[in-house]
């Protein structure tokens, strides 16, 4: 047993662990540099070099997407960990600290895989696209060095965070939490630097007519930089939570005792809660990104939403729609282990109806696929009477209602075994019902009204719909917290007593999140079409074409499968490692404890 108060917060043991990380990164970077320099001097000079069999584009795509997924994981896990650690410190519940520790332990190996994939990507980019990489590296020269420094900094703080976990307890806890916050700030800085490069390729700025640099800051702070930063930050949290929940689901299904089942059931719940919590504002961040793309280039925006990429949004709608189903399904099954929650079962029929109708509306294509003969008979690509089918007005309405439904599911789950006892409980509940009804009314009103106004006016309506939903959620929670203060508890949550199929809902969420990342990554990169830097530097290689959606989804599917296998490997190998303290599982009190 460690007595934290008598140990210094940072021991030589912890520093040795950190140094191992530094050494690992140093060796990897040096080897990559040597490999690139060596091969570049042997290979013949060319603007593009061709990789046999796989081809340049796919060869770069696979490690790039895998690197991005692992990077999302190693950035998402510390956010997940520090939130959980703070909850543990505030509530004094040891199990939160154990949960955060268990996931932080994964970081060392996950960093290694991320770095290996990053090095592979760098080598392939420099060797296959030397001219373009030369241009980008010259343009963003100061940021490459900053990125390397940030990598080392991230390794130092993240490894200290892990290796200092046991010694930085008790009176040092606040410093450990501060270290966790630092890991996240550092990780966010890394993300922001890398985003500057990719977003410049999408929406270039800061260069003159001849593509020479005028202002580095303008090149960094281009139209899509901040929206993508925010979108990725939220997505990383959701992704980290979903993967954590899937890990808990595996452990739950393999558990042999009730105690283990209780522990992993609870862990899965916390993971899914964080995932869903971060997932709900994601569509709003997506709106912002879309708006900035239109601001930058109407043509790019229209190509993305209504042109060749429009069909990929149908795939995206199917994935996100399924995600909403899975999240609600999990919450509803979870309510089975909450005494008293059955009083909300009656609402589930209405909720599933909203979700199903929302799903159908969202996944409906803009127009039908018609043959030449059919088009001639209709007098155009659209039906003469019905016109367009899946228009944005209806889709926005559907998405907002699905978000609100999922939020309500969670609120019911949260209130499951509690009955408010404050004197103003009836008024409070009526107010909550009112704000939700008003939000639904606003969303429906603007949804219908959108059909009667031009598209430019219609685009602005989505802001009112989003604001109504966000506002309703904020007011609902603001009332709910004091409302449930001192609430009468019907009974304790029966952790572990949940149907195994609920665990498959957690797997489903993790897989779909990963598929979404792959698909959205392709859309984001693909809308540049035949440009390295949109409208400025053309891709003159043989791979500049936009591939068919079928081929793209096959590649994305393959990448997702490889990622899931790799992450499973990271979990399995980390589980075998023994840390200094050992791995005594935390005991989860089955009675009297509440995850909220």
């Amino acid at each position, binding site marked *: 047993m460690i007595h934290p108060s008598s140990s210094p917060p940072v021991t030589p043991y912890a520093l040795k662990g950190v140094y191992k990380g530094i050494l690992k990164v140093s060796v990897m970077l040096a080897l990559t540099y040597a490999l690139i320099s060596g091969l570049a001097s042997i290979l013949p*000079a060319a603007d593009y070099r061709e990789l046999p069999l796989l081809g340049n584009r796919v060869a770069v795509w696979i490690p790039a997407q895998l690197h991005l997924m692992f990077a999302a994981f190693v950035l998402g896990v510390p956010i997940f960990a520090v939130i959980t650690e703070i909850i543990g410190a505030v509530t004094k519940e040891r199990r939160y600290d154990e949960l955060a520790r268990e996931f932080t332990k994964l970081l060392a190996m996950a960093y290694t895989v991320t770095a290996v994939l990053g090095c592979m990507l760098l080598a392939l980019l420099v060797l296959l696209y030397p001219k373009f990489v030369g241009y980008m590296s010259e343009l963003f020269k100061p940021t490459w060095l900053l990125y390397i420094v940030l990598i080392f900094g991230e390794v130092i703080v993240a490894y200290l965070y892990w290796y200092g976990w046991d010694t930085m307890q008790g009176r040092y806890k606040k410093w450990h939490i501060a270290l966790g916050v630092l890991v996240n700030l550092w990780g966010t800085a890394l993300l922001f630097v890398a985003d500057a490069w990719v977003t410049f390729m999408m929406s270039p700025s800061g260069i003159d007519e001849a593509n020479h640099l005028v202002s580095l800051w303008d090149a960094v702070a281009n139209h899509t930089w901040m929206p993508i930063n925010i979108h990725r930050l939220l997505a990383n949290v959701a992704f980290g939570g979903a993967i954590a929940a899937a890990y808990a689901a595996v452990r739950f299904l393999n558990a042999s005792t009730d105690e283990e089942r209780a522990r992993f059931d609870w862990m899965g719940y916390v993971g899914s809660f964080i995932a869903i919590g971060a997932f709900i504002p994601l569509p709003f961040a997506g709106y912002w990104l879309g708006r900035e793309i239109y601001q930058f280039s109407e043509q790019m925006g229209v190509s993305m939403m209504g042109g060749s990429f429009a069909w990929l949004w149908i795939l995206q709608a199917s994935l996100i729609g399924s995600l909403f189903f899975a999240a609600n399904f999990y919450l509803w099954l979870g309510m089975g282990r909450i005494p008293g929650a059955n009083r909300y079962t009656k609402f589930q029929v209405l909720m599933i109806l909203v979700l199903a109708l929302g799903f159908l509306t969202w996944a409906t294509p803009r127009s039908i696929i018609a043959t030449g003969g059919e088009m001639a008979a209709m007098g155009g690509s659209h039906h003469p009477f019905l016109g367009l089918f899946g228009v944005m007005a209806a889709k926005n309405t559907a998405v907002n209602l699905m978000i609100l439904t999922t939020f309500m599911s969670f609120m019911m789950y949260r209130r499951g075994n509690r009955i408010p006892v404050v004197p103003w409980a009836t008024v409070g509940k009526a107010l909550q019902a009112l704000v939700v009804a008003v939000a639904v009314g606003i969303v429906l009103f603007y949804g219908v009204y959108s059909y009667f106004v031009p598209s430019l006016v219609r685009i602005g309506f989505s802001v009112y719909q989003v604001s109504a939903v966000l506002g309703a959620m904020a007011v609902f929670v603001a009332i709910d917290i004091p409302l449930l203060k001192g609430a009468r508890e019907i009974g304790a949550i029966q952790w572990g007593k949940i149907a195994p199929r609920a665990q498959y809902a957690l797997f489903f969420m993790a897989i779909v999140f990963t598929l979404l990342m792959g698909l959205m990554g392709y859309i984001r990169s693909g809308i540049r079409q035949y440009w390295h830097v949109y409208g400025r530097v053309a891709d003159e290689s043989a791979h500049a074409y936009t591939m068919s959606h079928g081929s793209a989804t096959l590649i994305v599917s393959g990448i997702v499968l490889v990622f899931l296998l790799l992450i499973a490997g990271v979990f399995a190998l980390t589980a075998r490692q023994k840390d200094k303290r050992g791995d005594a599982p935390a005991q989860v009190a089955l009675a009297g404890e509440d995850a909220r």
Partner: protein
Amino acid sequence: MSRTLAKILVFTLVVIGAFAYLGQLVPQFVEHPPQKVVITTTTDKADLAEFGKKLVRGKGGCLVCHKDQETGNERGPDLRKAAAQAPSRKPGTAAEDYLIESLKEPGAFVVDGYPNMMPAAVKPPAKMSMAEVKAVVAYLQVLAGGEPSVTILPEDVATAAAATGPVHRGRALMDTHACIACHSVAGEGGAIGPELTTVATRHEPATLLSKIRQPSTWTAEGFPAGVMPVGDAIPEGDLHEIVAYLASLAGKSYSATGATSPWSHEGLRLGLVILIFNLGMLLVLVLARRGERARGGASHG
């Protein structure tokens, strides 16, 4: 346990497989980059209209919003009627001028009922030259059943700027490495050394490379030997860039990449960062160990 893991694997494969299958159900098409067209002052008008059609359907990206046949998008006006409606669109502006203006400055006049959302054809991403703009006008005129009236002027062709591939930085690097202090190129620079605009017409890129690396290899006629400094301080990648630029002035193609560019100096910087972090961490580790020993000694004492 293995049974559970097998179930999870099958479940994962089914979900991913369903997504992959869904991807095959949506319409499938492959979009290739637009073909490059070369327009000159002597290009035949029928060819010009044909080039214009290619530009409308390809590089211009016009069909994202317009249609030039029965089926297509209707975010913008129907292109089949554009030339016929042009004479009456903007009072006081001739039809051809109106069509050119609507491509160069679409916001100058917006047709009623349509939003002001069209990007200028002469700016990225279409970045058409004037010759290409006129080719599009020729196509619109033919599309409306008329004859092309546009004439390609020498200045239209001179400003033609094809989509640029990865950028050659040779000219900028000649400033960086002070070549321009002694040599002139494209009308700029000093007169101590030979004029370099046409140097690549007389010498192969490899010869130019060896000259910059080791000036004593040969000396241009009429200039004294031993004046030019040895170019070994110029990074390898930059050398290739400069030679590629000079070769391009002579109409020759030379790839600037292949050597260690752009890593020649980057390697040094990378090594420095690695060294600093490793030495720093080792120092911290040694100090921490010393502190621990001191505390151990004190507690024993």
